[in-house]
């Protein structure tokens, strides 16, 4: 069906679980093609047993994150023309997470760490009390707003060296979420949250490599959030609020 002059891409795709191999496919090159288009083409035309995830395919849900030529990215927002090297692509599951099958990684540890980092809002008022007014211009609200847009895609977690080196490290996303709550003046859970951030899995693991900040598809800055947590936990420690 393809013309003689059609360009093909040599795509190597991870097959298997924790153990497996890269399988090669020859995929026709198209204009404005994304890596998700490539994976979809493979599953529909070459091998229906290929497992992968996507949802919105327009860059708002974060489900299609995979490792492309060594970097974690959203495949629906990655143009083949930007990443193909010598007509070759290598696609694998997101790093630092267990592999379910092929390109689908298990996000459970990622969400577990969100919980461990106390990334849940703890209310300080009941429905019987007046609403607390928060100025969007206040320093705390600006800090929270800068961190709040995280959709938990896992790219930062996959990129982080320290997550790779220390299995208990909560990771950039969980700590970024924690920081957004630390700055929420309505929240009442900061003591427990700072204690979690100061624990063995907490913010002090971070060495500011800034891979998270470089690669976040939403332009967030977990390194800065973690730096904020380091300052707050150090203050709390010196004041004797945590040990």
């Amino acid at each position, binding site marked *: 069906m393809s013309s003689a002059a059609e360009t093909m891409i040599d795509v190597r795709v*991870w097959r298997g679980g*924790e*153990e*497996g*191999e*890269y399988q090669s496919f020859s995929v026709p090159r198209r204009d404005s093609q994304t890596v998700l288009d490539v994976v979809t083409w493979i599953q529909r035309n070459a091998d229906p047993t290929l497992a992968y995830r996507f949802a919105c395919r327009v860059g708002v849900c974060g489900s299609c994150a995979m*490792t492309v030529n*060594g*970097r*974690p990215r959203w495949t629906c927002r990655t143009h083949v023309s930007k990443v193909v090297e010598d007509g070759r692509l*290598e696609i*694998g*599951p997101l*790093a*630092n997470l267990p*592999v379910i099958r092929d390109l689908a990684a298990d996000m459970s540890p990622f969400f577990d760490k969100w919980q461990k980092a106390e990334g849940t809002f703890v209310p300080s008022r009941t429905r019987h009390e007046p609403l607390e007014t928060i100025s969007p211009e206040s320093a705390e609200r600006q800090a929270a707003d800068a961190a709040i847009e995280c959709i938990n895609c896992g790219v930062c977690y*996959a*990129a*982080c*060296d320290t997550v*790779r080196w220390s299995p208990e490290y909560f990771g950039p996303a969980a700590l970024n979420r924690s920081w957004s709550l630390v700055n929420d003046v309505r929240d009442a859970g900061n003591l427990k949250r700072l204690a979690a951030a100061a624990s063995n899995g907490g913010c002090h693991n971070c*060495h*500011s*490599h*800034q*891979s998270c900040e*470089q*690669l976040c598809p939403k332009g967030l*800055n977990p*390194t*800065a959030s973690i*730096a904020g947590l*380091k*300052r707050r936990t150090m203050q709390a420690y010196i004041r004797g609020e945590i040990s």
Partner: protein
Amino acid sequence: MSARPHTTGYRGDRLWIAAMVHRVSGVLLAAFLPLHFLVLGLAIRGEAELDGFLQWTKSPLVKFAEIGLVLLLAIHLLGGIRVLVIENMPWRDGQKRMATLAAVAAVGIAGVFLIALL
């Protein structure tokens, strides 16, 4: 064939290299420091002992190593300042440029030492 997926992570960026260099320089300095203290401790036994060792340090190989150590110290100092700035001051963009400047400064300091030696 059984292998593992390639999960080397994202690396090679200038700031990543800065962090790695900072760490390696720290480890090397930690290895050097006990030797440094031992050499200085030779002075306890009198000037002659220290002088005997210091004659050895005039050899070119040792001079070369000393330049390396000054470079390590300068690198580790500047890398450490980078970390302190990130952690305690308002966020700055343009860090890649600063990292490059810091590398140049470290080489500059080592260069001054080299000139002092010659």
